[in-house]
């Protein structure tokens, strides 16, 4: 009996601490996800269709690529010179979050991008761009 209690205690103690998102409800996960916080309710600002296409390319990457590949991507700048901006730089130039915020930790941002709540928020933002182009 004593061994059984000890084994049960060890089992409880040695279990890996669950990751934040594993224990968080979907609502809590969305509230703390860096991508959701930046994208949800944000406004896209760009001047030319080519700039808009580059933003869309980045958003598609944001909603599909794994974190390491996402952070390694480079995008054209305002003048359409290729491979000048990281994802974070591109977002800060074209997307105005509400409320205003920065992205101080690019790696954490890319990691958060892989979470379901983030991908849903990015897809919703892409749909809002689609809707604006129908005007």
């Amino acid at each position: 009996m004593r061994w059984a209690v000890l084994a049960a205690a060890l089992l409880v103690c040695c279990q890996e601490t669950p990751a934040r998102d594993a224990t968080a409800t979907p609502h809590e996960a969305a509230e703390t996800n860096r991508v959701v916080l930046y994208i949800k309710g944000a406004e896209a600002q760009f001047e030319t269709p080519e700039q808009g296409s580059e933003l869309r390319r980045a958003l598609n990457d944001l909603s599909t690529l794994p974190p390491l590949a996402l952070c390694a991507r480079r995008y054209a700048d305002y003048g359409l010179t290729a491979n000048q901006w990281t994802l974070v730089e591109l977002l800060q130039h074209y997307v105005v979050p509400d409320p205003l915020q920065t992205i101080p930790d690019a790696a954490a941002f890319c990691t958060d991008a892989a979470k379901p709540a983030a991908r849903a928020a990015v897809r919703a933002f892409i749909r809002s761009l689609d809707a604006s182009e129908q005007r």
Partner: protein
Amino acid sequence: MGCVHHPSAPIVAVISGLRYCANCVAGIRAAATQLDPHVTPPACFVWYKNSAEGWQPIAGTGCAHYVAHQLNIMVGGPPNTCLNGFTYRVPLILTGKTLVTGGLGAVQVNDIWVQADRHHTGLVSKIDPPAPAATGSASQPANPIIWITHASSGQHKLATNRFDQYFHGHGDFFR
């Protein structure tokens, strides 16, 4: 009364009624230097994030910010306004404005031009009479030449371009 962000630091500048210390002034200048040359005016297109990150450029192209400065639009209040209190979001600069109807002949200097998709904006800065070669009719006179001044990220400068050429005649006007 000390600095709005560093209460124990002495005041060296007052901007829009708020007091700032030397560290803040240096941070404001440093953040403004990160902006693309098209952002007009650049000195106030910054915001204070926190003590760790300090002063940062405001996100976005700054197109609405230019229009807001020209028309004295301060809708939204902090944090939807720049350091000097002017709006930088496109939807907010249209608050209380009315769509100009009556065709291009009804457009006036200082009307706000907005792309149809609402992602870029500028200001009507000049209107010239129709080109001599343009043909109109009594019922439909030739359109005037409308010039839009805008913070142009694509051209890296505050630019003035023809509505019918550079913008292909697309977009709406608000007054």
